[in-house]
């Protein structure tokens, strides 16, 4: 019973969403719209769960003086500052919340994103070794794309950007499509397994 009820809910909800896509007639449209709205409501309510979990984990760390507990007050203070300024002043432009967001959250996000430049370099240095013919092929195409992506490529030889476009629009496109089609089949199969209750390990049941 403990497993049957969730499985039944999954089946009914899954079938409604599938039918909703193919059958425009009521009641499927209404049911489908409603289910999507329910998800939004559940997800919004779950934000409180997330916030409570965040506070609980970090207060517990401080209370028990667990490893690295000294970082936890930073998290809690940051969380409360954003929460309180948001509640008191609202989130419109020019208010303290907006100020904190623009001058702390935004630059920190940009910093994390720009780390990519460095990590791409170190990953490329390590990964591109001409160890066999396939790796050499990969290395060559990487060089062409890297050169074609900047003006220097065209300065060296004006056909390099064209080679880049060819690499991107033919072999790259073919590979992308293959991955997309394969993944789409995986999505269909996974959805079927969930809807028909064949996959139930996430509910703790094996058979």
């Amino acid at each position, binding site marked *: 019973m403990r497993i049957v009820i969730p499985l039944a809910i999954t089946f009914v909800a899954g079938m409604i969403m599938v039918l909703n896509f193919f059958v425009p007639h009521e009641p499927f449209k209404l049911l489908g719209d409603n289910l999507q709205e329910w*998800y939004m409501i559940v997800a919004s309510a779950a934000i409180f*769960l997330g916030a409570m979990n*965040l506070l609980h984990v970090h207060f517990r760390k401080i209370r028990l003086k667990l490893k690295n507990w000294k970082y936890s007050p930073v998290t809690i203070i940051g969380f409360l500052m954003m929460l309180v300024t948001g509640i008191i002043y609202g989130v419109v432009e020019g208010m303290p919340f907006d100020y904190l967001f623009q001058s702390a959250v935004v630059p920190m996000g940009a910093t994390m994103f720009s780390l990519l430049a460095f990590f791409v370099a170190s*990953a490329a240095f390590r990964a591109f070794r001409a160890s066999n013919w396939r790796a050499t092929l990969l290395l060559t195409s990487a060089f062409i794309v890297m050169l074609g992506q900047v003006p220097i490529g065209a300065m060296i030889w004006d056909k390099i950007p064209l080679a880049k476009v060819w690499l991107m629009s033919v072999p790259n496109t073919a590979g992308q499509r293959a991955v997309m089609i*394969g*993944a789409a*089949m*995986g999505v269909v199969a*996974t959805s079927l397994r969930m809807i028909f209750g064949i996959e139930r390990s996430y509910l703790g049941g094996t058979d």
Partner: protein
Amino acid sequence: MRRTAVLLALLLLAVGTVAAQGVDPPERPESAVEEETGGEERPSGPEEVVIAPAHLTNTVRVAALDRVFDLQATDHPNDAGGSVSLAWDFDIKDEVPDSLAVIRRGPSGVEERIATLGGISTRYTDTTVSDGDSYSYWIESLRPDGTPAAVSDEADASSSAQWIHSGRVAMLIILAALSLIIIYYIETAKRGKKLYIREIAGLAAVDDAVGRATEMGKPVLYIPGIMDMDDIQTIASMVILGRVAIKTAEYGSALMVPTARSVVMSVAQEVVKESYLQAGRPDAFNREDIQYLTDDQFGYAAGVDGIMVREKPAAIFMLGTFYAESLILAETGRSVGAIQIAGTAMPSQIPFFVAACDYTLIGEELFAASAYLSREPKLLGSLKGQDAGKLFFIILILLGVIAATIGQFWAPLSSVADFLRSLVAVS
């Protein structure tokens, strides 16, 4: 085996080339008006609608329009009823009306203006009708002072709801066929037929990775991507998490799951709890290890990087939907010396994982993981069905490429290509 791979690569290359040469761009009818105005090569809107030339918006809106003609009222297709689509055209003499009024006469005979539109509108959808009743529509073009300048003919329509979406019938058939194939193979597997499953290195390494973490006395870090529970990759990731959690429970190593969504956190907690129960180690389950960090993409990346640097996990799993944070996570994980197993169906992130991780599950392998790890016949059967489905699409693509290529020189085959395209097109 290698020959098959080369053949497949050639096929893919062919698909790419044909597409890149633009053999199969979706057809877009040219608007009649455009031809008159010198034929700018500009694709116009959907089939049934003719768009007024946009350059007219710039002219001075003074004079009245001669007439609105060819008004067509039809039941709005593929909906739950309650709406009628209107489309019309202009007779243009370099003048546009200031505005247009849409007038309706209902079943009771009452005339009412249901909308006032901008002077260049050529379509309107009336969503306030009741199914089965007949309505008459006409359009009046208005002068700046609001007086009517010209009136169109009347057009009648009634709305109805459709039981099947006409643009999706082919897809429904394909989906049903795929489902039947998958179910057939599941049944075959249930009857005890032995099914072959190829070695997936990344999944074969799951045991080793968890074992290594146990030996080193370090935790296992599981990152389920940054999307919510309504993303199928996150769902697949939760299924794999269940399998990994059974292993960590058996081996007795700590499992940390930082999440970017609250719902994912709740689900992950339940999944891991169930796995520990199943492994007979409910006492070892620690709810605090599955925590919510933040919804913010790069805030989450920073938080997880922090966990990696402080806790130095021996094994890191990154399975789910990832965007630009993929390499930030994977490079940091590598720098702390963890064995890393990644998997995603996001094509643009796969190269980053391949470069920085020890093993990468590419696309569908992520969805195959649960079957691979459990070896349950029913799940393996569904994999086999999936392969059959893929074969179907490979054949379809092959036929399409051949038909489209030869169709360039021999017209009958190009209509075959069009038919194949219409099979897989969804509206």
